[in-house]
């Protein structure tokens, strides 16, 4: 077996062939350390890795690297999210060195939601590099030990490199090629957009399998339990790139009064069961949006506990 690329716990879990289970933690819109610690509690021991979002939806929040360090102090394995919207290549590489120096071993390279979505719509979007190029830059830093500009790095940061994939957005036939580009750029693992349209997802994974991509990258399927019919409709109509089939909304509407969230969790667990058996899928990324305290229950019911110790 080849050497490990990083000190990432996720890498060890995936390499050992375990079905990974990862979660998410959104930093606060303030500097409360307690807030992060509270959110971290229900995740501890229930997930292998926690994505720490980076100014998500273009709203200012505690920086991802700082919240990642707090999460690490709480015993979690942070996945430092980095968006291309807010930093140029100098700031990116500097932050990567700093994050690695502080014991962060995973990074998720993203484009980032457009500034227009947030509460600073007049901000200048940086977009010096795009997400695929960011992946390539981090790989070069790690494997070649050089900065993007070519100079040598003293103690290169050994990051386990993640990326995102949206298997649903149009043009659908392009999606697997975009994945292929990220694989060629050097991505180690992929966390997908929230999956609701299972039929389309199966097709996308089949394409990725046929192209041999799933042998080169670990794909974690994105799962978001719906809390309410309103949330499902909002995601269908208002969140760009989201594909929520009518059957999902109908099923939630059909739930007994007071049992809609329960139905949402049930749907999520059924999905997870299917992903465990799906060829080319290495784990699940659970995005329990503002529902971190439900993660232990969902993990329990999805039968992914206990988490492997590696």
């Amino acid at each position, binding site marked *: 077996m080849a050497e490990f690329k990083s000190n990432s716990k996720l890498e060890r879990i995936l390499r050992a062939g375990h079905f990974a289970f990862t979660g998410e933690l959104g930093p606060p819109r303030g500097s409360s350390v307690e807030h992060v610690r509270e959110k971290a509690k229900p995740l501890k021991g229930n997930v292998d890795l926690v994505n720490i979002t980076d100014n998500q939806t273009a709203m200012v929040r505690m920086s991802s690297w700082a919240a990642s360090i707090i999460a690490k102090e709480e015993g979690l394995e942070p996945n430092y999210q980095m968006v291309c919207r807010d930093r140029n290549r100098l700031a990116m590489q500097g932050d990567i060195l700093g994050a690695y120096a502080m014991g962060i071993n995973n990074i998720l390279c993203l484009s980032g939601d457009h500034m*227009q979505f947030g509460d600073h719509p007049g901000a200048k979007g940086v977009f010096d590099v795009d997400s695929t*190029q960011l992946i390539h830059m981090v790989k070069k830093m790690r494997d070649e030990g050089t900065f993007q500009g070519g100079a040598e790095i003293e103690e290169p940061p050994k990051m386990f490199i993640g990326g995102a994939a949206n298997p649903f957005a149009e043009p659908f036939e392009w999606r697997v090629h975009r994945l292929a580009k990220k694989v060629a750029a050097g991505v180690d693992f992929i966390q997908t957009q929230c999956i609701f349209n299972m039929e389309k997802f199966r097709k996308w994974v089949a394409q990725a399998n046929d192209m041999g991509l799933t042998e080169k990258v670990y794909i974690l399927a994105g799962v978001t339990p719906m809390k309410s019919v309103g949330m499902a409709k909002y995601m269908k109509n208002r969140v760009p790139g989201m594909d929520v089939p009518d059957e999902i909304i109908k099923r939630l509407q059909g739930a007994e009064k007071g049992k809609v969230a329960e139905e949402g969790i049930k749907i999520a667990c059924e999905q997870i069961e299917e992903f465990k058996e799906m060829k080319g899928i290495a784990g699940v990324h659970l995005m329990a949006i503002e529902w971190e305290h439900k993660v232990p229950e969902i993990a329990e019911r999805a039968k992914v506990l206990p988490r492997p110790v590696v």
Partner: protein
Amino acid sequence: MIVAERKPFDEISDLLAGYDKVLTVGCKTCVAVCLAGGEKEAALLNKELMLARKVAGKPVETCAALVERQCDMEFLAELDDIVDQYDAIVSMACGAGVQFMAERYPTKPVLPGVNTTFIGVNRDVGWYEEKCRSCGNCLLGVTGGICPITMCAKSLMNGPCGGTNQTSCEINKDQPCAWYAIYQRLAGQDRLDNILKMTEIMDWRNNVPRTIVQPGYEQRKAAFSDK
């Protein structure tokens, strides 16, 4: 062409507070085509200005002039004889024209009458669309003649991003997704292989003021510098 928008009247009026003799200079090229800073617009601004100042009890004397291209010293020189008669000049040209005018008359306040908005096309009368950010490193040859730097809200070079909304951009349903369009056009021309390979990190060349001197003119430039 360069597309501009007339500045709001109040802003121009504030810039001109305290000046009683104003020369407003239109530009006959891009800003005239986009109906922001040509002959008509210069005259109209003067009328607005005189009326407002009359009402305020601070009358102003104005004159409208028109220059073929304010980005060309040769044409600006036509104003040399009249400039001294005015306290301030409003240039209705793009930002390049305003600056060249200010350079020609360094002792006069030269004020902008328009906001220079973008390099774009004339879709119809009064309807213009941005098409180019003048990044200095044109990708159009591989992207099916659609610029991802300008037309993608995130200037992605390996897009489309996950926010593509059917065929629209995530920022707005009326804004087509540039990468969707690139994909469709290249697919139609059987050139998809153009975008299957990663486009490398961009060497941005628009971070410093740029100058181009064509080889045949290098000596001329040197002669200027010696002066």
